[in-house]
């Protein structure tokens, strides 16, 4: 398995620390600072008053440590609700996606009938559909099926838009699942379903982790579908709430900056504390492909 090898690599790096390594270390440190700088700027802005924003250099530190912007952003974002919603939509969608994409990709990979080949192409087309440009038909369909302004509606759409990539990812992973095991299970009299759930799915776990994490990013940060399907206050997501801070109050940057910090912080902390699993999950499936 890939991560076993990775572990080995981590435990016994095949390079010594040489002068070149030091040079690389220095270059990468500079790059890291460059990458982090904009984030620090955001944080700096988020503590400034409106007046300081206009009158002082963007690089200067705020004159006093005040949390007004955060209070305002907290209020405006309706954080408790929007955060729960975003979390709920993301979690449920990715779980459904993991389940559906696994079964779909497996069936497509194993069944040689033409229809399944067609299905594969059919799903792949989805990766390419720019759903931003289809917003009105998507809304029309959603409205007709009573999906708008409901939790299951928005989840439905996330699944629909994410399934293509999921099938693509899972399918490329499928070649690593040893078919002999499945055949053995079948000889033991397992049905297709049982074979999948008892034999195949456990082997797909790394790929599923990849899928879950990749999709979770997408869904967490999605703006368009959420704004299209949800207009009720109690169903709104974080990105939609933030966007309204941007567009409506373009002059109130400081509050917007605080809102950015608030929205990024939880997921950043989550990432940092679970980094190991995160990266493992995110990449194993992709690399194996």
């Amino acid at each position, binding site marked *: 398995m890939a991560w076993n*090898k*990775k572990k080995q*690599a981590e435990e016994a790096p*095949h*390079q010594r*620390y040489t002068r070149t390594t030091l040079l*690389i270390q220095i270059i*990468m440190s500079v790059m*890291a600072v460059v990458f982090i700088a904009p*984030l620090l*700027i955001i944080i700096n802005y988020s503590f400034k008053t409106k007046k300081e924003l206009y009158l002082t250099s*963007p690089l200067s530190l705020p004159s006093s440590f005040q949390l007004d912007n955060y209070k305002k952003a907290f209020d405006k974002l309706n954080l408790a609700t929007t955060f729960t919603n975003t979390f709920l939509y993301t979690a449920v969608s990715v779980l459904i996606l993991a389940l*559906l994409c696994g*079964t*779909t990709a497996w069936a497509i990979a*194993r*069944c040689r009938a033409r229809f*399944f080949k067609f299905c594969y192409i059919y*799903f*792949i*087309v*989805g*990766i*390419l*559909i*720019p759903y*931003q*440009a*289809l917003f009105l*038909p*998507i809304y*029309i*369909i959603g409205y007709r099926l009573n999906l708008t302004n409901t939790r299951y509606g928005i989840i*439905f*759409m996330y*699944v*629909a*838009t994410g399934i*293509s990539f999921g099938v693509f990812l899972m399918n*490329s992973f499928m070649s690593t699942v040893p078919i002999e095991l499945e055949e053995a299970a079948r000889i033991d009299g397992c*049905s297709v*379903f049982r074979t*999948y759930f008892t034999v195949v799915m456990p082997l797909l776990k790394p790929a599923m982790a990849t899928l879950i994490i990749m999709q979770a*990013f997408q869904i*967490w*940060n999605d*703006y368009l579908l959420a704004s299209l399907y949800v207009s009720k206050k109690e169903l709104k997501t974080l*990105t939609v709430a933030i*966007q309204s801070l941007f567009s409506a109050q373009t002059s109130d940057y400081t509050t*917007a900056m605080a809102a*950015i910090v608030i929205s*990024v912080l939880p997921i950043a902390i989550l*990432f940092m504390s679970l*980094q190991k699993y995160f*990266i*493992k999950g*995110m*990449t194993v499936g*992709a*690399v194996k492909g």
Partner: protein
Amino acid sequence: MKRNNTMEKNMEKQYLLLVLPGLIIFTIGLIIPLLLAFRYSFTSWDGMSAEKPFVGFKNYLDLLQDPDFRSAWWFTLKFTIGNTIIQNVLALLFAVALDSGIKAQKVYRTAFFVPCLISALIVGFVWLKMFSNVLPAVNELLGTSFNFLLFGDGKTVLSGLLIANNWQWVGYWMLIYLAGLQSIPGDLYEAAKVDGAGAWTRFKNVTIPMLAPAITICVVGITTGSLKVYDLLVSSTKGGPGRASTSVIYQTYATAINGRQYGYGSAMSVSLVIVLLLVALIQVKGLKSKEVQQ
């Protein structure tokens, strides 16, 4: 054709049951809207009124002569090509650098990765501020006079957007390359070393081939993502100055929605889907065949 194998048929049915739920959701959520758009693309519907007058291929013929649409394509292509090259190269370089045995790898990983946790909408806004306020202030501080006003000129706006987009995504693809690198067995390098291969030869003959699957994922992901660029523009350049950074989707949105020409805009989306389809097919075919060879 007639394989009278009931077992096979029975299994096929079960497989079908596994595929069906996904197929239905996907069809309702994405394919039917696409077909609706396809239908609208033959009308002059304004997106509001009840009637949708049929106009045949007029929208498509108009598209061919629409200079704004052409320039939107031109921008999108430049953006996509630039992104695919820069992002892949940078991500790979970063991954190699991080894998070269430097200390505190995790810290770097986090630093490069965190930007992709932010939505593109916010990234655009942040870089707007960076280019117009923050970096000029850096100039002042250092007494330098770099031109940082990249979003302010049609000639530099592309580079500005490439910077913003790469800032956001390099870390993401880097992780994929990194995992790929770390899954390459060390003895392969040892063997190459014994054969007297230098660093570059080893990179070319061992690393790159072993990374092929990761490269496929990254290239396809970056190109299709870049061709669909929209969110980033909404909060930064708004397609400007002028139309210098108007992407196909941005132009489609502006035409279909703000311009109340839904039929015409639908023709734009349909043409985009077709192009995306072709590009992806070619890429997947090409890259996959290389993977097989190696």
